[in-house]
């Protein structure tokens, strides 16, 4: 076995071809171009086919990774995608936006001495291959149970539950507040990282399986959970995400040109403001942009600003590089595209002109003290270090909280002190009968795959309930 391992490791990890930074920083086309079948098969050869695959332990939805990689190696991409579908209804999305480095790939045995198998790239490859070349075959579906499930929210958690339960023979209707499905995949993640065509094709896949998708329904306003039950639904899964933007609460924050990341990305992605005036929704084109925060959403905002024609884009973050929450790959992509980082810097107020438009941001330099509640070292202001960063556009990307729209209209749904829905982590059950919840509205802002994982747990529990009554 060790000898074999050494032999296999001789093939280096196959890099994903990408658009050149100088070119891509000015267009909205996808950055990584995807594997060719040859590259995919070559990369698949690197997999050791471990008997006890630790990669699967790192996958929140337990995709049978060695199996699907084996099919790729054999050139049977249809079997590979079917293997993934057994556990994951969103492979084209997950292959692109999962933090593989800390999940499946982080556990890959090859990573101990060299580079792990590019599991994410391979997953993306088979999903894309199926979309383009597949015969549109559908996975087998259980016979109808006569039970009806409503899924509230069409982001990663909602889509996962819908995909699972439709295959188990239940009738599924997804309610979405926006006019397009996909949740954060549609409004939040930019085209250059996750083309909308791919999101819609994953949703369409569920529709072909028989899911109904009803857009423009704001649950909590258009219809309540109790009214959904009154329509004859047997169970409800709530996955409305964490869509309440946090602001800095500093003076000048309502000046024109200061956006929440949610607004900035929604205008650009969902409303296609980057195509204005072909599309009617406008967006400010800053020349000198600051993005406050250093998570994946901040990187997305900064890279969007660059593509909208900015001359200078700066990420302003109050801690140091080591504490930046974004994925290493996203930080790297941003840097390659010319985004600058202003670390250990915290904004104190915004400055505007007589028309109420932002012209600058006053900041303080920080140094790091003892760790705080989050386990990260607490930033402490350096006295007298005030300085002003000129800017004509600012995007605030310091996280999001629980949106109260649905929970306000559902008093019998218990919440925690931050307004997130209380749900049993083992089942997703809430305090309201026949209502489950999962994703960001339970955990607070997290990742696509964790939301999908929560969806998988809930769908098993919902299936038990619909089958056995518990």
């Amino acid at each position: 076995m060790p000898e074999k391992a050494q032999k296999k490791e001789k093939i280096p990890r196959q890099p994903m071809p990408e658009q050149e930074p100088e070119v891509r920083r000015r267009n909205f086309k996808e950055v990584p171009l995807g594997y060719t079948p040859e590259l995919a098969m070559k990369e698949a050869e690197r997999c050791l086919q471990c008997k006890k695959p630790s990669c699967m332990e790192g996958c929140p939805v337990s995709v049978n990774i060695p199996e699907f990689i084996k099919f790729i190696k054999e050139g049977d991409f249809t079997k590979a995608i079917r293997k993934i579908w057994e556990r994951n209804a969103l492979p084209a999305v997950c292959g692109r936006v999962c933090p593989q480095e800390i999940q499946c790939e982080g556990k890959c045995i090859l990573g101990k001495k060299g580079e792990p198998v590019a599991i994410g790239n391979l997953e993306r490859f088979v999903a894309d291959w199926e979309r383009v070349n597949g015969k549109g075959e559908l996975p087998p579906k259980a016979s109808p149970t006569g039970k009806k499930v409503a899924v509230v929210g069409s982001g990663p958690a909602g889509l996962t539950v819908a995909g699972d339960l439709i295959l188990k023979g239940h009738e599924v209707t997804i309610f979405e507040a926006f006019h397009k499905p996909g949740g954060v995949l549609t409004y939040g993640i930019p085209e250059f990282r996750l083309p909308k065509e791919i999101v819609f094709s994953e949703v369409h896949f569920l529709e072909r399986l028989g899911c109904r998708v009803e857009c423009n329904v704001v649950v909590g306003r258009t219809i309540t959970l109790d009214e959904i039950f009154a329509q004859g639904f047997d169970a409800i899964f709530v996955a409305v995400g964490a869509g309440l933007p946090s602001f800095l609460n500093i003076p000048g924050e309502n000046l024109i040109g200061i956006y929440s990341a949610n607004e900035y990305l929604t205008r650009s992605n969902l409303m296609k403001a980057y195509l204005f005036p072909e599309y009617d929704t406008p967006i400010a084109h800053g020349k000198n942009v600051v993005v406050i925060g250093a998570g994946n959403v901040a990187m997305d905002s900064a890279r969007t600003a660059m593509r909208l024609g900015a001359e200078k884009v700066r990420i302003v973050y109050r801690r140091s590089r080591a504490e930046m929450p974004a994925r290493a790959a996203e930080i790297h992509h941003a840097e390659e595209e010319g985004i600058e980082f202003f670390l250990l810097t915290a904004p104190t107020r915004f400055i505007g002109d007589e028309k109420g438009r932002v012209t600058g941001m006053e900041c303080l330099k920080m140094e790091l003290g003892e760790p705080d509640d989050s386990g990260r070292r607490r930033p402490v202001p350096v006295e007298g270090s005030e300085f002003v960063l000129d800017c004509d556009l600012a995007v605030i990307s310091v996280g999001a909280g629980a949106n109260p729209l649905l929970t306000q209209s559902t008093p019998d749904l218990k919440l925690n002190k931050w307004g997130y829905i209380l749900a049993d982590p083992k089942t997703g059950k809430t305090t309201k009968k026949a209502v489950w919840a999962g994703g960001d509205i339970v955990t607070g802002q997290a990742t696509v795959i964790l939301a999908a994982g929560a969806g998988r747990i809930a769908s098993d529990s919902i299936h038990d309930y619909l089958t056995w009554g518990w």
Partner: protein
Amino acid sequence: MFEILKRQEMADGTVVMNEISAPLIAQKAKPGQFVILKANETGERIPLTMADTDPKKGTITIIYQVVGKSTALFKTLQAGDKFQDVIGPLGRPTDLEKVGTVVCVGGGTGIAVLHPITRGLKEIGNHVIAIIGARSKDLLILEDKMKAASHELHVCTDDGSYGHHGFVTEVLKEVLEKDKVGLVVGIGPVPMMKFVSKMTAEYKVKTLVSLNAIMVDGTGMCGCCRVSIGGKTKFACVDGPEFDGHQVDFEELAQRLEAYKDEERQAYERFMAECRAD
């Protein structure tokens, strides 16, 4: 899809009424709430407060003024055409209270928003005095409906072509001098709401205004519609659209409404040029 069942042009054709099929919304909507409409695939999401609803017929009524590309596009939609998306009801309903005498002040298309609130306030037993205004007689809308919804109706025009020659605030001042007023509801252009609020503050009369901030989702998710109320930031979409007029920072609201002035002009000119080319 959301079919337009009835369409009527008002005020020299600059204002348009649409009765739209939207059964779920019609059953739920209350006075003061709004919907977001999107005409087609490339369209913008535009918030409009409902002028009326008919739960039995499953319809909602909107009345809008043509001010830019999106409303010009709306105007091209005829009876039988459809809005691609209508979302709602959004926002908090008006808190209809019995206070005695109420004055409802409306300007321009604000009268359309004011109408169901006026009717609601009358229905629960208030004595309702309505004051409505427009730039000239031709631009005045809903006079008959406002007459039916109130006990007393005053009409003002800026140019004196009809009713009182002057601003609604002048008539409001007379009413406030004469009667003991428990509540004023003022809905119209930002300057009008500002001056109404300024005046009622002098008389210490509680005042509600409805703020037409720029919005995207309308569900509290983007924060675009933030307004300063008593020094605190609120979201017009979920905390409003109605607020205490004495607490509103109208200057900030007016500035924020100008955020996309250049883009709006560009889009409108382009659209009108395309229309002429057709």
